[in-house]
């Protein structure tokens, strides 16, 4: 801890105030939004109920009070309108951060995101930047009703022009929301809502330094080896990272050394890191909450199978949701990739 602090502050005297705080993921995003808003008056928040209420998950708590109506805007209840007007505002140099209240309600905005937001930079030959961030509390596990637990990443990752990221811990949440905001590209920022209340240490200094430099958003697209291992590579991101880490722990206790790759970014997808690990272990399991069929895991499995063809000792296995609508809350524990199912897959590839 001292070391990080030292590195971050880059100075010796006077003894700096600690830049490390314990935060929930929701708190880290809140703090990250605040920091970005303080840094640049062009950063605005838009969405349903994000003002006085602070959002249904309280991620924007206190920001309306401190920044006012002009910076934290409660919009009409219309997602296409929200994203569409955010695009327009971004064309005048604003950096709108849009909140979509729940994953399942992003679809009215699908047209704006897919045909407009994603393509504006391309079709204008780079003349128009649309640095809109779309924050989405996503995925399941919180016992919610229909449309409140959707894993939407594959539906956007296929479209060029968008970036998609998903933090799995408070530190990444704090850093990545700011990097997303200052990215010149549009970013879908997928917040694993079941992890909102998980706590972790957050060093608030590191990203600040990065944002000041030229490499502001350079590592936003990079995966992270969350745990090193030699027998099996387990690829996860956002909502399933906790299960992945638990699986690695259990597997270790049973003698299997699992390397966990936290993708962090889905578009771009850091295949360099994934394939390097795959070549080393020769065994890969991908886990996400989204239905396996045509999920992001398909691309990963396909590419690993292709590029690490001669290194694989076992087929790449995928653990994910089923090809059904997200079922009622009482079913979700079994619908989602459980620790058991992940371990089962790890065992199966390890046995090969």
């Amino acid at each position: 801890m001292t070391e990080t602090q030292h590195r971050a502050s880059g100075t010796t005297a006077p003894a700096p105030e600690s830049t490390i705080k314990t935060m929930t993921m929701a708190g880290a995003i809140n703090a990250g939004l605040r920091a970005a808003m303080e840094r640049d008056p062009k950063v605005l928040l838009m969405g349903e109920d994000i003002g006085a209420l602070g959002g249904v998950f309280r991620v924007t708590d206190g920001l309306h009070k401190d920044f006012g109506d002009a910076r934290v805007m409660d919009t009409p209840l219309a997602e296409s309108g929200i994203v569409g007007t955010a695009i327009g505002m971004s064309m005048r140099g604003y950096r709108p951060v849009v909140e979509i209240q729940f994953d399942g309600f992003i679809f009215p905005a699908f047209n704006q995101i897919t045909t407009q937001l994603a393509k504006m930079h391309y079709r204008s030959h780079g003349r128009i930047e649309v640095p809109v961030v779309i924050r989405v509390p996503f995925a399941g596990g919180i016992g919610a009703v229909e449309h409140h637990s959707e894993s939407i990443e594959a539906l956007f990752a296929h479209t060029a022009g968008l970036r998609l990221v998903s933090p799995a811990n408070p530190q990444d949440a704090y850093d990545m929301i700011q990097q997303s905001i200052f990215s010149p590209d549009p970013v879908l920022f997928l917040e694993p809502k079941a992890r909102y209340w998980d706590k972790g240490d957050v060093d608030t200094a590191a990203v600040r330094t990065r944002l000041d430099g030229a490499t502001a958003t350079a590592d936003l697209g990079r995966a992270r080896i969350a745990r090193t291992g030699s027998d099996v590579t387990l690829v996860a991101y956002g909502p399933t990272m906790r299960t992945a880490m638990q699986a690695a722990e259990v597997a270790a206790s049973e003698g299997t050394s699992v390397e966990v790759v936290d993708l962090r970014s889905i578009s771009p997808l850091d295949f360099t890191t994934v394939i390097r690990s795959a070549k080393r272990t020769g065994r890969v399991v991908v886990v996400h909450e989204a239905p396996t069929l045509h999920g992001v895991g398909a691309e990963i499995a396909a590419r690993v199978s292709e590029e690490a063809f001669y290194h694989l000792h076992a087929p790449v296995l995928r653990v994910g949701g089923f090809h059904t609508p997200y079922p009622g809350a009482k079913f979700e524990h079994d619908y989602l990739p459980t620790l058991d199912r992940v371990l089962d897959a790890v065992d199966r590839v390890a046995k090969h």
Partner: protein
Amino acid sequence: MDRHGPLSDDGLVTLLDRHGERLADPDWEPYVEHLTAEDLRGFWRDMTMTRAFDMEATSLQRQGELGLWVPALGQEAAQIGSGRAIREPDYVFPSYREHGVAFTRGVDLPQILTLFRGLEHGSWDPAAHSFHLYTLVIGAHSLHATGYAMAMDRDGLVASGNPDADGAVVCYYGDGATSQGDVNEAHIFAAVNDAPIVFFVQNNQFAISEPTTRQAKVPLARRADGVGIPSVRVDGNDVLASYAVTQWALKHARSGAGPVLIEAFTYRMGAHTTSDDPTRYRTRADEEHWAQRDPIARLEAYLLKHGELSDEFRAEVEAEAKALGKRTREAVKSWERPPLLTMFDHVYAEPHQQVEAERAWFDRYQRSFTDEGAHA
């Protein structure tokens, strides 16, 4: 509180003022004059039962028996009034807060809770009650309702020559929903096709935390002007007026004269859902202002004033409400999750290779634990 623009109460049809005084309104009288004292007591009973159920559901949610509850508190008059104007072969598309309307359609109220207990996404049999499932994606059902109305028209259920046999659709949604593209498209499709549909907007002043001023600068009823369909603003806390305007609107729609929009001006007395905290976005004073306009108290005052609410009847309804509460409690607690494999049911009407394969895999996977005895 600013009571201009969409928050103004200008031009609301009111037949029963907030003190329970009957107001004369020759335009609307024809739609209520047939109502007997028993009918009015029936309205009171419906509202009372709905509220009792609503409170019970809230308490079940607090006890952890439900994942969520969406109270209709304060909106009983708009819902019972309109609901009682609906008849066969009318068809209703609710949003997700129309428990009162559900009651008028004969839905057994506890059944609504299977959804909120996380057992399923739809509860009752829509056809049996002419009452579609709740739709949680704001406004999406308004288009289904419009299409359904177009189909009713095609099926000869409109202007058939026998007005008693004619039908129309009633589609409910909130003030917030009026901003959605889908709802505006529904208005347009309905207008262009002269669809037999009544758009019933419950303007309960809030879309979660956002006051109606975030959705509009002018009263929501004026959305109808944009597409050239008639509209009316009604005091949604007045069950009589709500009944009257819905009667009129349905008559209009059933006769083949096309769609109508009703704005019922009301107030959500409770939280948006049990996850909500209204103290963050509205004042006590505002809540008190509306508490004095409680739809049930208002009708009660009227009935009492006219000696139409006997102690016996009250006791009877109270007992009925209590029994409903008990039955609700017991039902909810008794519901177990159906077998896991049922989550693969009804994804498609006909077999689908991937669903079948995954179901089979999951079955084997589950059995592997049972067989090994390793599964909880």
